[in-house]
């Protein structure tokens, strides 16, 4: 069993079969604890080594309960049982024509219980209606920016097309952002900690491709705080490596009419 745990945790297995690895890892870990209990000489719960197994199980149950509570708190609200999600096609606009990007979309989320988004935050997103198997899948994405419309706060994620869940999301992409008729979603989080960059004179940010989603909120936030509370940053430089010019449109912000994104306002100052 230890061998199976070891083999299933090899980096290449994890990378290629992540969903299977995740579930298998949990099952094997639970089986390992059960087998160790059977193997242990003492079956008394409060005697060594059984007490450590009990502690491991309690720790697991405690964190699982906290997670469940957090998911329920974030997603369950009277008359708004789950968060709403709309997948929006990103369009690269030139003077000649508009070309939709084939490898990235914006995901607009209206959380049931909004929070104050901060740089460095990411959420786990589960959209049961995206495909047949998506109800058991939950994937992490950085919060790229956020805005407020007439009905509340909306957070935006930039999702790159890969395999599985992200590929399924593309089938639901449209040009409009209509969160009322959007899909139901379960948002878990926000997680992540903000780096304290305000005390530095010069801030250099580096991003490659989709990594811009993690860096953009820092630029937004530093500019906002520079205007509001006079933080000490004198220079903010963002270096973004792109495969093609069309990828710049990942940052194009199309929101419903009369809804000005907060971060656009601050960037425009």
């Amino acid at each position: 069993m230890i061998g199976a745990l070891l083999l299933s945790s090899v980096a290449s297995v994890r990378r290629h079969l992540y969903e299977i690895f995740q579930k298998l890892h949990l099952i094997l870990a639970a089986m390992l604890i059960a087998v160790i209990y059977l193997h242990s000489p003492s079956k008394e719960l409060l005697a060594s080594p059984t007490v450590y197994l009990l502690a491991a199980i309690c720790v697991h149950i405690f964190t699982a309960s906290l997670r469940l509570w957090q998911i329920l708190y974030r997603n369950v609200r009277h008359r708004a049982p789950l968060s709403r999600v709309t997948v929006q096609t990103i369009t690269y606009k030139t003077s000649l024509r508009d070309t939709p990007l084939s490898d990235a979309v914006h995901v607009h989320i209206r959380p049931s219980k909004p929070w104050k988004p901060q740089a460095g935050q990411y959420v786990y997103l589960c959209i049961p209606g995206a495909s047949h198997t998506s109800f058991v899948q939950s994937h992490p994405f950085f919060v790229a920016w956020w805005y407020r419309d007439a009905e509340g706060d909306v957070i935006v994620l930039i999702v790159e097309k890969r395999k599985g869940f992200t590929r399924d999301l593309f089938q639901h992409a449209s040009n409009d952002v209509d969160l009322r008729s959007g899909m139901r979603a379960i948002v878990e989080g926000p997680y992540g900690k903000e780096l304290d960059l305000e005390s530095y004179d010069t801030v250099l940010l580096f991003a490659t491709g989709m990594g811009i989603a993690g860096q953009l909120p820092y630029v937004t936030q530093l500019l906002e705080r520079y205007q509001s509370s006079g933080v000490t940053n004198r220079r903010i430089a963002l270096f973004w490596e792109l495969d093609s010019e069309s990828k710049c449109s990942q940052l194009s912000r199309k929101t419903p009419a009369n809804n000005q994104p907060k971060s656009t306002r601050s960037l425009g100052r």
Partner: protein
Amino acid sequence: MDLTQWYAVALGALVALLFLSHRILLMIRIALSYAASCLLKRKYHPQVHRYVRGSEKATLFDAGLIVAFVVGNVICFTLEVKDVATLVKRSGVICTINLVPLALGEHMNMVASWCGLSLGAYARIHEWLGIVVIVEGLVHTAAGAASQKLDLHTTSGIATLAVSRPGCLTSERQLTRYFSRLVL
């Protein structure tokens, strides 16, 4: 010194503390701030040399934690272990103790966020915990097999075989013998 003299000294100390408290607190604050700055600059932020860490990101602080954990395990593993029976028992118990923090691994994001750790650092800690548990489990099994205590007629013995991986058994013949017992 009698009681009154002790009282006089204590009163003097209190008065001195009253006058110097502001400066003492300031000095403590500066010293702590300097210590924190040194820790951040020299240990917390600098990365381990890339020949050691490869393409992974690992700061000196992370590496220090991991080294302390591994060294602590090695010490607990080897200290006062005089025979194979003690090694079997010790490795089994330490392996089980290490399972407790390992159980936090399923909800890594939540724990890392609440503790203010970076996810990468936490994942590395989980990985090292896992490696150490596996190594200890294998040592436990190998030592148990070497001491010929494996009895496959009992649930405990079968569980031992299930915990271990076949590759760590001493020989192919021994493996065949164990499986024939299991079938019988």
